[in-house]
């Protein structure tokens, strides 16, 4: 995937967003808006942010991702951050980034499972 290209795919009620490996700040900011409008357009209930190719997560990237998760929640959507690489997990934690209140999964498969379960539960109680 060319750098700077954010892929947004809709699968049933879920949006799968693949973050490019080394995005610049503008791409990261645009990703946030792109995701929110796609949630609205597709009436999506869930979001998977796949960062499995991302090699550097700095404080700007982390803040934008955390914000996006909160914004999606305001729109009634549930987000899962998937595929964080080991070296990135070590680095973001030591940098002091917590990703509080963000659901995470090892890969997209498990993120899909998590969202399916959560969305079914919601459906039952309604």
């Amino acid at each position, binding site marked *: 995937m060319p750098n700077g290209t954010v892929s947004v795919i809709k699968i049933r009620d879920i949006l799968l967003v693949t973050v490019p490996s*080394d*995005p*610049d*700040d*503008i791409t990261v900011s645009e990703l946030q808006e792109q995701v929110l409008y796609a949630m609205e357009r597709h009436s999506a209930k869930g979001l998977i942010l796949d960062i499995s190719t991302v*090699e*550097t*997560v*700095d*404080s*700007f990237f*982390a*803040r934008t991702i955390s914000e996006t998760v909160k914004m999606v929640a305001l729109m009634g959507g549930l987000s899962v951050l998937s595929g964080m690489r*080991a*070296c*990135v997990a*070590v*680095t*973001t934690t*030591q*940098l*002091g*980034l917590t990703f509080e209140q963000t659901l995470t999964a090892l890969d997209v498969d498990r993120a899909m499972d998590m969202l399916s379960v959560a969305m079914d539960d919601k459906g039952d109680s309604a």
Partner: protein
Amino acid sequence: MNTLCQGEMLIDTENDIVMARKSVREAAVTLGFGVTDVTRIVTAASELTRNIYVYAGSGIMRWHSINDSNVGLELVFEDKGPGIIDVKLAMEPGYSTGKGLGMGLPGTKRLMDEMDVLSEIGKGTTIRIRKWLRQ
């Protein structure tokens, strides 16, 4: 062997942050750092070049390998920006004058082995960070 790798680049636009990450990654990989240390060093460079861009507008990043009794990589970030009013305070987690999280400087220090901050109000800031290659 004393100049195994070195370079410098101007940090002037947002895209220079991406270019800085690429250059630093290449240097760290060339020196033989493992994937986790490479990620630490690149992330530190990303934080400090963004600081230059956000707070000073422009500046310079230099890097060179250290090849004495210890092998390592040193990065220097220099700007002629407003300077840091209280360096000690800026090194405290959670402190920020800008739109950041206040993670940049203390976080960067945790990622690296050594970090020196020299700053003078109205003159600018020079930050030197080092990572040693463990063998």
